[in-house]
């Protein structure tokens, strides 16, 4: 760029200005739903009217958010009870599995790996009926613990693979030198690999947090109404339509907020998780 002659640079900056037109159109496309949620949420009950839905509120009113929060509070709590253990347990399991699969070659490892991988992609409709039957048999149907278990198990493939790919990049010499110093399997993991993998932990925790928070299918099939997480409760609230749509918009924003906050503050890791999930399989 620095080698360009001045006239060309001028032309270039004009071209750049033109590029903002499609960019701003795209911005509008991405922001419209957010605008609708917040704009409607902040209106007072009296201002809510489909005819004026695009106009700004007269001030910041919190009636809709309060009403939606009262409705959704139990479900929010259920979601918290779900995602914290689900994300934590799957990360620990994924880390241990990933470590072993990356470092210790044993017979059958090449066989196990693709089977694990495919487990990430299956449509859950193909295991839904047995899952319900099984949860009934072990007495975990209807509650949050059964849902935690489900998310942990179906999360094993992705968490394991993310950690495995990460641990595979750790130089062999590091591990070998520890071995020579007499460190065993667990000591090597604990002293060398675990401290290195904190960023991976963040990636996997965020990934599992997001997918458990956003899950609908498992939740709607496996939990009874008292234990519904936020997605099911929100859909139920929206489906009934007795509640005015302004409260639905406020509720939708409340349901989206936790993952949005994670995205805003830890977006770098979130993106890394996304890309790891795609590029490495």
């Amino acid at each position, binding site marked *: 760029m620095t080698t360009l002659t001045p006239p060309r640079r001028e032309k270039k900056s004009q071209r750049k200005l033109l590029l903002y037109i*499609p*960019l701003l159109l*795209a911005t509008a496309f991405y*922001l*419209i*739903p957010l605008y609708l*949620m917040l704009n409607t949420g902040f209106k007072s009950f009296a201002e809510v009217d*489909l*005819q004026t*839905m695009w106009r700004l509120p007269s001030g910041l009113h919190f009636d809709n958010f309060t009403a939606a929060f009262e409705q959704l509070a139990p479900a929010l709590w259920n979601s918290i009870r779900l995602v914290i253990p689900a994300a934590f347990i799957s990360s620990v*399991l994924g880390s*241990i*599995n990933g470590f*072993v699969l990356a470092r*210790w070659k*044993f017979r059958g490892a090449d066989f196990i790996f*693709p*089977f*694990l*991988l*495919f*487990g990430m*992609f*299956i*449509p859950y*409709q*193909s*295991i*839904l*009926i*047995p*899952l319900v*039957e099984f949860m009934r048999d072990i007495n975990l149907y209807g509650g949050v613990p059964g849902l935690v278990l489900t998310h942990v*198990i*179906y999360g*094993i*493939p992705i968490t*394991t693979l993310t950690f495995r790919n990460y641990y595979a990049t750790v130089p062999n010499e590091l591990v070998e030198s520890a071995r020579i110093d007499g460190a*065993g*399997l667990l000591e090597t993991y604990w002293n060398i690999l675990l401290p290195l993998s904190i960023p991976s932990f963040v990636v996997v925790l965020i990934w599992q947090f*997001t997918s458990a928070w*956003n*899950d*609908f299918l498992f939740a709607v099939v496996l939990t009874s109404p008292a234990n519904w997480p936020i*997605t099911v409760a*929100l*859909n139920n609230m*929206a489906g009934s339509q007795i509640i005015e749509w302004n409260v639905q*918009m406020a509720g*939708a924003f409340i*349901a*989206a907020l936790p993952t*949005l906050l994670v*995205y805003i503050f830890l977006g770098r890791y979130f*993106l890394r998780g*996304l*890309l790891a999930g*795609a*590029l490495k*399989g």
Partner: protein
Amino acid sequence: MRFNKDRMLAVALVSPSILAVFIFVYGFIAWSGRVSLSEWVGLLPNYEWAGFSNYANLLQDPRFQIDIRNTVIFTVLFVGGSLLVGLGLAVLLDQGLRGESFFRSLFLFPMAISFIVTGVVWRWLMNPATGSRISGLNLLFDNLGLDFLISRWHTTPQWGIAAIAIPAIWQMSGYTMALYLGGLRAIPESIREAARVDGATELQIYRFQILPMLRPITLSAMIILGHISLKVFDLIVAMAGKQVALDVPAIYMWTTTFDGNFYNRGAAIGMMLLLSVAVLVIPYLWYTLRTEAKV
């Protein structure tokens, strides 16, 4: 001695997880397969052998034919749309514009939101009401004088499913943008410089130099989005509830199993879905693993 002990420990550490995945994934698939070959209709299990009659019935089932048609339309529009929008945005952001990181974050944020939230909001945006009850995007278009854009959205006869692809693209195109942007950044500047020296225009550089290099990313994105598309469920439930016009296999499986108690048919639909995903994903995984093994 130590080596053996470690080896045993290693096996002990991973085997519970491996076992769990094998039971919950492959064991349950086999179990579902068995249900799909049974006479189970009603609340209580009935494993009486039915052969492949459930599959045969499904292939002749007009509702399942609508499901297939809807899935094909949705997949083409959603995957194609996400790739195009994602590539377009990535190329725009690759021009070194001011505020790039802001735009990048903006296009990605829908990824963090659930399909249910997306569906609930877009359901209001795509309100198909007309006349005095007009609202949502249609009202906005009306106010802006863009009346030609007013649409019946997902209530359009025959093609309603196409409207559902719009929120899906809204949600996932940031993801393809991120993939492409990563790919573009990985292309050394020297290649572009060389092309410029040869007198190629920027457009030609993209068309003949850059796009071919992004092909592996396009393939990855197609597989990931394609399998999401085959499984689409929450988004349609939140936007349109249960209606045959917008039916897809995942919703048919859900309603026939839990509303009609046709467990055998529900299981058969689940297996067909699995098959379609497997056809898409297995060759890709095989290819990825082989290239990875070579490296």
